[in-house]
């Protein structure tokens, strides 16, 4: 450190900032003693140093942690101990009650213990519940079908006065008989509403249920066929149409004239129920190989399901034969 005219100010500033070592401080003090002209300069710089100013933070106690919680715990513990010790009987009973409480907790925990045997029972119970639940579900679906059939039958009965003459005429194949049974114009009027309803029902089915394409196609054909009849057509034309319809059915059960009336009535029932915004019902062709199988809300492709069952049965047979060998 060399003190001279060019460096003294920096060194004096370091001196007043207490950034010099003790040895350096002594050197500065010696320099000032040797050069009194610099004493004023040092004094002026020292005047820029702020003296201690005692300002107190007024909310110091608020910043501190209050240990009242520990004090409170200690106080209550002392009080409780004193109370318990004051009554010897209470002290014993208190201890005993604590022991009993602990024992009862242990018993409760043990009673809810989970071992392998209980797990097996629970699994079997769950399987039984699923099985019976499924059975109940299938029963309810069958009953729904029965209900729909009964609705269809009732509606058929209602429509019978209008439609049965047509089936009769179909069996006889004579238009003259029809004319002789009732008025021609009246018959046309009685049939036309049915054809219109069938058209509506078929259209609704086609739009709403895409998975049942075959059935809807049949109904569409039926509706197209029925739509060919106009109010100006004669009963004879209607006869021809009604004869054509059974040919479109593959199911031998529904090939006769009566199922036609049932199906038409059923469609009519669907359409009327749809108009009311209620549940719709339909007849499922159980022998159709491509039909969709419904289990609860799940749709399963019939072919795939059959394939799976065949594979499973084949696998089981193979196992059985292996065991026998």
């Amino acid at each position, binding site marked *: 450190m060399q003190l001279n005219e060019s460096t003294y100010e920096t060194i004096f500033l370091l001196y007043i900032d207490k950034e010099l070592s003790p040895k350096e401080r002594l050197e500065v003090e010696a320099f000032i003693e040797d050069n009194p002209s610099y004493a004023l300069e040092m004094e002026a710089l020292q005047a820029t140093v702020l003296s201690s100013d005692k300002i107190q*933070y007024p909310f110091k106690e608020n910043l501190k942690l209050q240990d009242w919680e520990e004090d409170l715990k200690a106080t209550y513990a002392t009080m409780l101990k004193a109370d318990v010790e004051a009554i010897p009987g209470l002290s014993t009973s208190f201890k005993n009650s604590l022991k009993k409480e602990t024992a009862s907790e242990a018993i409760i925990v043990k009673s809810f213990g989970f071992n392998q045997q209980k797990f097996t029972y629970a699994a079997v119970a769950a399987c039984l519940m699923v099985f019976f639940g499924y059975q109940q579900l299938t029963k309810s679906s069958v009953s729904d079908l029965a209900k729909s059939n009964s609705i269809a039958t009732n509606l058929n009965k209602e429509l019978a006065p209008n439609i049965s003459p047509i089936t009769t005429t179909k069996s006889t194949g004579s238009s003259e008989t029809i004319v002789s049974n009732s008025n021609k114009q009246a018959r046309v009027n009685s049939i036309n509403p049915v054809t219109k309803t069938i058209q509506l029902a078929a259209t609704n089915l086609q739009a709403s249920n895409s998975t049942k394409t075959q059935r809807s196609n049949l109904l569409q054909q039926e509706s197209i066929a029925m739509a060919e009849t106009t109010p100006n057509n004669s009963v004879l034309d209607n006869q021809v149409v009604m004869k054509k319809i059974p040919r479109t059915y593959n199911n031998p059960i529904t090939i006769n004239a009566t199922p036609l009336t049932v199906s038409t009535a059923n469609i009519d029932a669907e359409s009327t129920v749809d108009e009311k915004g209620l549940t719709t019902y339909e007849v499922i062709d159980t022998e159709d190989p491509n039909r969709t199988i419904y289990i609860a809300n799940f749709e399963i492709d019939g072919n795939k399901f059959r394939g799976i069952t065949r594979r499973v049965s084949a696998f089981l047979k193979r196992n059985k034969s292996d065991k026998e060998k």
Partner: protein
Amino acid sequence: MTDKAYNECVDNFADGVYRFIVKNIRHTEDAQDIVQSAFEKLWVNRAQVLPEKAKSYLFTVAYHQMIDHIRKSNKMPLSDEASIPHQPINQAQTELKELLMRAVNELNPTQKSLVLLKDYEGYSYQEIAEIMNLSDSQVKVYLHRARIILKNKLSAYAPTAS
């Protein structure tokens, strides 16, 4: 840091932090808020702060909060210096002190903080550099400039005062 150590920090450093802030911003309520925030932050981070570094941590936090406060409010010369309590020793010293404080208040915020931290808290250049996020040489240069300015201002005030 234990609860006891935290309470000791409050006892030892709350006044210093408050003085540093209140001398800088000259607004008692805002200074109290800043001090409270600084101690709150110390309490939240007490697990990471060593007791020996607590003072530096408190001043650092308080300084940065003060800078934020100054930037947000931009209201440095708000209240009068008279709002800060003083303990005058005698008339001459009081006059000199007032003149010096007047000169200090005319410094820019960085220079003012440097002078306050150096003179009131006795921090070294290195410690001030850590608190104010400056280099050691910057602290030295800025502080020396501040001293020269103060000396010139005091010499300018002296004939007027006399």
